[in-house]
């Protein structure tokens, strides 16, 4: 009995997604006749027009570009910052640590308008590389926190040995500490990818041209064009979430662990 209830709950989580997946292969007419039936045959036209008319490939490319640059920067800056915050006690360390973690609870949407004004005055609107800056900033706290707590747990002997051998700070960080952080770094990459790929409001206000929009914003535009054609919209949704679902299915253990650690910390 309890098994049944839990199964029912799990179904409510996954059924809408499955429904959208198979319905995207129906024609509009077929969908309107029966909204839950399986498609009689696979109708790929929705996907064809999602790309040819809806230009989803452009949005996908923009998201990939913004995500790749942002994740790289986030992990790099996060690693260095987390490492120093964890290894050394220095003047101002606690203030900085608090400031970075503060980024996890600050209501970031209060920054929408302020950031827009700043970027406009500096002529930085409508540029994918300027979008990278807030993306990195908001993904950074979680990464700093994960790295900081991981580095705390590794003994300092390896680094000491490296210094005895004459290595300098940068070499030690890059050749000794960085490789040891492998597992946590991959968690950081995955989580910041998800955060950045999914990010909506800043991409919405900082990018104006159709050509440069990321997939969540592009999808709202796409939906506006196909309001009545549900299977078409579903195809668009599928294209937009496919990367996320794939990453989740491959790395779900890491994702769950990392997100829970970050959430509890904040």
């Amino acid at each position: 009995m309890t098994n049944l209830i839990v199964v029912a709950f799990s179904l409510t989580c996954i059924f809408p997604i499955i429904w959208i997946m198979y319905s995207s292969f129906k024609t509009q007419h077929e969908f309107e006749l029966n909204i839950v039936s399986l498609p009689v045959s696979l109708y790929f036209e929705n996907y064809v027009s999602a790309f040819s008319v809806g230009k989803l490939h452009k949005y996908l490319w923009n998201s990939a570009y913004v995500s790749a640059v942002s994740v790289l920067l986030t992990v790099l800056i996060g690693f260095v910052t987390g490492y120093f915050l964890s290894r050394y006690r220095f003047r101002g360390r606690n203030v900085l640590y608090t400031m970075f973690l503060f980024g996890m609870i600050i209501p970031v949407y209060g920054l929408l308008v302020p950031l827009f004004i700043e970027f406009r005055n500096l002529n930085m609107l409508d540029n994918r590389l300027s979008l990278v800056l807030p993306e990195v900033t908001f993904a950074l706290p979680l990464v700093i926190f994960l790295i900081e707590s991981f580095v705390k747990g590794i003994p300092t002997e390896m680094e000491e040995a490296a210094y005895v051998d004459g290595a300098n700070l940068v070499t030690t960080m890059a050749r000794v500490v960085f490789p040891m952080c492998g597992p946590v770094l991959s968690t950081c990459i995955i989580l910041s990818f998800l955060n950045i790929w999914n990010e909506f409001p800043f991409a919405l206000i900082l990018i104006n041209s159709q050509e440069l929009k990321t997939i969540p914003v592009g999808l709202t535009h796409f939906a506006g064009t196909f309001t009545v054609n549900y299977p078409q919209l579903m195809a668009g949704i599928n294209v937009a979430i496919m990367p996320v679902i794939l990453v989740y299915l491959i790395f779900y253990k890491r994702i769950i662990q990392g997100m829970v650690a970050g959430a509890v910390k904040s």
Partner: protein
Amino acid sequence: MEKKLQSPKWTTIYGFLLPGILLYLFIVLVPLAVAVYFSFFKWSGGLNKDFIGLHNYVQLLQDRKFWFSFRNNLIITLLSIVGQLGIAFALAVVLQSRWIRFREFHRTVLFLPVVLPAVVVGFIWNLIYSQHYGILNGLLDSLHLEGWIRPWLDNPKIVIYSVTVPIIWQWIGLYLIIFLAALQNIPEEIYEAAEIDGATGLRKVFSITLPLMYNTLKVAVMLCISGNMKIFDSIYVMTGGGPGISSTVMAQYAYTTSFGQFSFGYGSAISIGMIIISLGLILLSRRLMGGRAFE
């Protein structure tokens, strides 16, 4: 932990920390300062702006729409604390029990919505709620509950509840996993001892599980509050804050005022007000819960 490593000079340390600090300054602190500055002006984004002192803030304090949207944030937060945490807790207890099968599958599936873009969650629920082609009304129809069928997102009286359900739905998984981790830390012997004393099912939950999970529950409530202060994406997609302003939350109101009506001066004041209110609420809840605000 011992600090045997010799610390580099502080100039070196700050050199390495500089990129992060600069980014934070440029993206968080400077915009805030800029917003405080413009909040003293009547400004529609163009070249002309009039200094009006605190007028925007006086207006904000009297702005019914702003407080209405804050109230919406509060409603969503309260419903989430009850619904999200309640369901997640019940599921965690059930999933932890001995006779549940496919545990791994349930965990994975229930967590999936957490990683979806909130925009997509909005679209998914748009489709679920759709008047004629949505699964919700379809389901009600097939259950012969035609009386329950309604335009879920177009009725100003119920829309705030309709937009809350997707938010609850999306985040149950996160709290479920947090609770499961806490449950695993409760030693099995306590339950065994209670069973010997004759405690069963719900009694065990209320007398053992709940008290022992008190700290975790506190964390979850605080998380719920801070999370719900930044709701925007899914509601933007589902209703855009409408009909009227019935499902408008603070972020949506700041957005509409600034980008819909081009009142950037007032929009700045709303943003500052929103940050102060949210932070105040978050810090207050932490204080009340007995935890320290920060490390």
